[in-house]
């Protein structure tokens, strides 16, 4: 297992390096002088600072030389400096990262728990009214724009019903500490986590249902029936367990979308995470910050993929043979 994790880590580092290279070329896609672009485009740009950037990123050197310098600085976790915010990009992201991890983590747990539960229920009663209702609901959530459902949730739950706060991470100036603070944050978390989770819940409902129907046709399910097992045991132990494997794979593939979706949710709910940071960087055309967030969110996806790989391997004993 340790060897496996080391192998996947090494692969992850390679992918991350490739993403950084991609980043490097993205900066050069922007119109104008890369140093000026990185410093924050036109206006308000300090000549000395631009000159500093130029030496730092070896812009006076050849392209491979520039690339090497850029890779070197990223490897030392130096993501550059945000002129607009007057702070190093790494520090800015570091401050915001916990909020995003909390939001995406909760949204993921909600989506996979509800998704698998409802998907299994629908598959168990395929063709019934419950199945139609669940698949219909899943389809609806799957087609709903994330930013819009967030706004509609604010109208309903914050403006009309006044149940939940509509924006922010916690009540500013309330001075809560300890458990009270946690409860306050949890209240603020409900709407963003739910709206972000709904779309992914729909994804897992569809996958779990399809996968269970697929597995229920396999021979070993017939073997289980031939033993005289009850339908519940057959569904749980034989069908669901096997059907979850593709769901785990899908969870890995969806990680990128989840992190991307956080940009919209955080923007709507003014959630102080890196997604909101990305939106701010976008408004101010702060390319250095924008690319920094991009690299960090890619790294998040890589780590999540590593976890799903490990989970898959732990669940499926065949993996050693298959590869």
């Amino acid at each position: 297992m340790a060897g496996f994790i080391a192998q996947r880590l090494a692969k992850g580092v390679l992918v991350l390096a490739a993403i950084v290279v991609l980043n490097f070329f993205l900066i050069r896609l922007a119109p104008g002088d890369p140093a000026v672009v990185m410093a924050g485009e036109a206006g308000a740009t300090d000549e000395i600072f631009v000159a500093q950037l130029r030496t730092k990123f070896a812009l006076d050197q050849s392209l491979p030389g520039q690339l090497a310098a850029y890779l070197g600085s990223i490897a030392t976790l130096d993501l550059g400096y945000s002129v607009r915010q007057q702070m190093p990009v790494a520090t800015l992201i570091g401050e915001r990262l916990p909020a995003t991890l909390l939001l995406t983590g909760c949204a993921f747990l909600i989506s996979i728990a509800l998704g698998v539960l409802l998907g299994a229920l629908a598959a168990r009663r395929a063709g019934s009214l419950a199945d139609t209702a669940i698949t219909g609901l899943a389809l609806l959530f799957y087609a709903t724009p994330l930013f819009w459902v967030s706004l509609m949730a604010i109208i309903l739950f914050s403006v009309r019903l006044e149940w939940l706060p509509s924006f922010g991470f916690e009540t500013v100036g309330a001075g809560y500490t300890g458990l009270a603070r946690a409860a306050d944050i949890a209240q603020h978390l409900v709407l963003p986590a739910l709206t972000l989770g709904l779309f992914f819940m729909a994804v897992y409902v569809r996958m779990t249902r399809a996968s269970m129907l697929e597995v229920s046709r396999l021979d070993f399910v017939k073997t289980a029936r031939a033993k005289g097992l009850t339908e519940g045991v057959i569904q749980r132990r034989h069908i669901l367990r096997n059907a979850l494997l593709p769901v785990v794979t899908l969870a890995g593939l969806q990680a990128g979308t989840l992190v991307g979706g956080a940009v919209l949710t955080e923007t709507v709910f003014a959630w102080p995470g890196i997604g909101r940071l990305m939106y701010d960087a976008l408004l101010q055309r702060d390319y250095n910050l924008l690319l920094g967030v991009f690299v960090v969110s890619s790294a998040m996806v890589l780590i999540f993929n590593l976890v799903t790989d490990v989970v898959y391997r732990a669940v499926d004993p065949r993996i050693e043979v298959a590869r």
Partner: protein
Amino acid sequence: MDQALTPPGVAVAVRDLRLALPHGGDRPNAVDGVSFDLLAGEILCLVGESGSGKSMCAHALMGLLPKAVTVAGGSIRLGQTDLLAQDAAGWRDTRGRRIAMVFQEPMTALNPLMRIGDQMAEMFEAHGLLTPRERRARAVALAREVGLPDPEGIVRAYPHQLSGGQRQRAMIAMALALEPAILVADEPTTALDVTTQAQILKLIRDLQRRRNMAVLFITHDFGVVTDIADRVLVLRQGRVVEEGPAAAVLGAPREAYTQALLAAVPAMNPPARPAPDGPKTIEVAGLSKTYVTGGGWWRAPRTVAAARDVSFALRRGETLGLVGESGSGKSSVARLVMRLIEPDLGTVRLGDTDLTRLNGEGLRQARSRIQMVFQDPFASLNPRRTVGQIITDGPVAHGVSRFDAMERAVRLLALVGLDARALERFPHEFSGGQRQRIGIARALALEPEVLVADEAVSALDVSVQAQVLTLLEDLKARFGLSMLFITHDLRVAAQICDRIAVMRRGEIVELKTAAELFANPEHPYTRDLLAAVPGRARDAA
């Protein structure tokens, strides 16, 4: 109706069983008025070709019919109960405890995520018997009883760590767990190699005697019937054709259908054949291919030798058989000869051309000289192209005009016994045997010198198989073809081959004329293979 108990000595009484197929099928009933008694302590074989309804009967006994198939009438009486009249709870109680079942595909019949022992223990759990600890102990004992190696270890293994034969043993162990009075075995050895099949058949026979079980054994193979049956029931299109003691049905069948089926089973004694003396058409020398699989940064790769220094030659008009079990490399050799896969070493000479040296356009041109007939009549024809296109695509690619190619296709279709109207039809409109004829026509359309037949009759029913074999023999003589005939079935090889090469793990272990090979097998592996062929008792008689 006889509401009383089944008569003494009868384990299960099936009366007028009718199973309805969904509308739009090729017939209304899969099983149409089948009646039989399964006696305690006997093995009853249900024999029939595909579509005879034999497997449906087996599944009806377990209440495991496909959703689309419904019971239209009849009864299955076990002791005091009519199985068909019981509810879901009744079925759950019956399954495993009173009747157990072994399936055809050991590779897919076990849950890949559960340990073998746990799957065996489930049998007790399902019926609320024993404590978890006792269940584990029983699983080990069962594994030992069915002859699994290292029983303590194997109950902790996952299915993928077992061979096909071991998995089937595990399935049998599971079926025996609750000591049911009746075992239903649905083609339990069809997916296995011939030597493994012989072992499993012996195991079933031994266990049946030891426990005095009634066994309903489903098979399409008269060799297997000969080896295992006490009584035989021949089915055709859902109806019983003939029933009787094995010796009577096999030795002196009353019905024409049974007689025809038995006559179609190839005999083990090769007919006398004149030694071919034509010029050599194809010469294979030192052909080698090793597959390297897996192997990451921290793992050594696995290597499998598909071919090791394989050499043989074929004369004009000669048929060479390549026989062996799965994994012996016989199909790989066929594909190496066809250049569908690249050899690591060795040459394939067609007259004065070395096929292994050619590439690109040169290879494409040379391909017309050696053609192939494939195993699966359903996968070997593109479902989106008409039969006419399928046959003419090859000649057209070699510069023949579509018009001339079509004319040739009409002649070829007549030759393989199909109507010219077939040209405009799509493959799905034909039966398996007809599709195989189309595949043969496609191969012949290029007027090849050599024909490679890769398990070309393995997927066909025995009567159709006999027809296709005759056709191949006939065409070979007519066009003076050389034929490389790959098969796992020694009976088929005996009938069609002039010489036979026995392969094991990528190597030819013995190569001699068919008559010699069957009369004096020298290599121990050849002897094992020959001894394992089912139904030898009938050949000797």
